[in-house]
């Protein structure tokens, strides 16, 4: 492998560190860098300290967790399916989480408990993952078909919720939630979803050997001792926990999971296992940068995170299609 390939996890980690630092120093409220450092290191209750420890720090940590979940899930699914267009939403857990959170808004639970939306989102993701597993066992193609069936069903539920929204305000709130955001997220949100995301990342991190062997196709991977059923189950559990929890707390954030592995792959000789860690780091860095953009571009109403990632990600998708057209036989 090239020296650049060996250094890839470190490079991606460095990009992530820089993005995280930028995320702490850049925001709506101008805080001098010295005050930020002071706020991070001492527990006094200055305004600058509060801005950093109660607003920017949890927000940055959440962005890192969510971005890592999306990047790693994308890398694992692209490896599992051997398809460069695979993305974390394929298994239906993203839309499941959205339905859960939207139901919380629909029934006004968010007025009662602040964390109702992410909690219901978690339940929705788990439910959707369970349905995908129940119908999709036994083959990679069936898993994907079951995932898209679940996504379709969940999209129908979302449309239904919008259709019968109790008030225009609720409909507006649902729509806005679905555009994705990291604003107004607190330490409570971090503590709620971090265990699920970290557990999911841990499960996905175990899959390097299996997705490497899958570079030879499923039959040869099986002949090399890879348990395909177990591999698919681990992928579903890992993606369900990490992306399900991520979507529950941020809403839909597209393209990160699709894009991050592609930025890494050429540098690691296209080895599926070597894309995992750098994809997680780069996914986190991309989400941090997208979140910074939502804060520095001043608009009358908040520029939503999912909008920014889609605006940046969609052209990338076009580029990918063009490149595939050129390299495809």
């Amino acid at each position, binding site marked *: 492998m090239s020296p650049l390939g060996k250094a890839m996890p470190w490079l991606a980690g460095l990009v992530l560190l820089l993005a995280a630092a930028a995320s702490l120093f850049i925001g709506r409220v101008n805080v001098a860098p010295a005050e930020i450092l002071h706020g991070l290191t001492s527990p006094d209750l200055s305004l600058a300290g509060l801005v950093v420890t109660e607003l920017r720090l949890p927000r940055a940590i959440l962005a890192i967790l969510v971005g890592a979940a999306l990047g790693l899930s994308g890398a694992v699914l692209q490896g599992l399916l*051997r398809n460069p267009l695979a993305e974390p939403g394929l298994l239906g857990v993203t839309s499941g989480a959205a339905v859960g959170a939207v139901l919380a808004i629909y029934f006004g639970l968010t007025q009662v408990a602040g964390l109702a939306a992410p909690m219901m989102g978690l339940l929705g993701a788990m439910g959707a993952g369970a349905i995908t597993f129940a119908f999709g066992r036994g083959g990679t193609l069936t898993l994907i078909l079951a995932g898209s069936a679940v996504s379709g069903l969940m999209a129908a539920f979302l449309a239904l919720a919008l259709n019968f929204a109790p008030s225009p305000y609720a409909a507006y709130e649902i729509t806005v939630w679905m555009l994705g955001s990291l604003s107004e997220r607190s330490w409570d949100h971090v503590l709620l979803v971090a265990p699920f995301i970290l557990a999911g990342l841990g499960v996905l991190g*175990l899959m*390097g*050997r299996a997705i*490497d*062997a*899958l*570079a*030879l*196709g499923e*039959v*040869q991977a*099986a*002949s*090399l*001792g*890879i*348990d395909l059923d177990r591999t698919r189950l681990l992928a579903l559990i890992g993606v369900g926990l990490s992306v399900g929890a991520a979507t529950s707390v941020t809403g839909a954030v597209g393209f990160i999971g699709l894009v991050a592995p592609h930025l890494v792959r050429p540098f690691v*000789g*296209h*080895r*599926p296992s070597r894309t995992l860690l750098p994809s997680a780091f780069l996914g986190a860095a991309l989400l941090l940068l997208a979140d910074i953009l939502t804060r520095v571009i001043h608009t009358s109403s908040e520029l939503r995170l999912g909008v920014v990632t889609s605006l940046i990600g969609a052209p990338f998708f076009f580029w990918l299609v063009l490149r595939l057209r050129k390299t495809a036989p």
Partner: protein
Amino acid sequence: MSRLAATELTVRRGGRAILDGLSCALEPGMLVAVVGANGAGKSTLLSVLAGLLKPDAGEVRLDDRPLGAIDRRELARRRAYLPQNPRAEWPISVERLVALGLTPQLPAFGGLAGGLEPRLTQAIAECDLTAHRHQPATTLSGGELARAMLARALIGDPQVLIADEPIAGLDPRHALDTAGRLAALAAGGKLVVAAFHDLTLAARYTTHLLALRDGRLAAFGTTGQVLTPALIRQVFDVEAAVSGAGSTAHVDFRAPT
């Protein structure tokens, strides 16, 4: 030294028996050519022998243990399997592709241990791929890829090699080369089972012939005894002349008159 024993194998798909009560005992040192017309059940038999497809009835034993009772990684270390027309799904280098054959030998984490590097170099050289070592596997020609896949299968030094048409698509030199390597493996005490379409190559290089007709065993025995015009007529529905023996054997087909 490992042996494979199949008893009463039956595989049904859509109400049709693809394998029908097939039994055979394959011993170390054999190079077995599995021959038969298209759809005779060659690939199915090889998948079942490799433990990748569970038969609807019957069982395969590797050294007197049913395949289903052997841990999948242990099985992967002891037998290698090559499907028909294997593909590389990512543009990984030839070196990486061949090294994947060591998957069952390696711990779950960490790369190739230093001690395995010479083996990798040797496996690549043996399959005449040294010039392509760092080339993306997806840019290889069909025959080069077939050789890379064979290197992948052999690098783990399996006791049993099961290959589905390992010679299809190879140019004459590499076809002879590969058949010679399979024969040398068998001569070294391994068991090699491979589907063959080229009966002349089978006649010259294999020790045994296993002929299938409609999922049933048509014949099994030493190649010299079994490969006769009568068997070819029975299995392929064509007239043929078999001349010579051993390294000068030749099989000629004639269209039915």
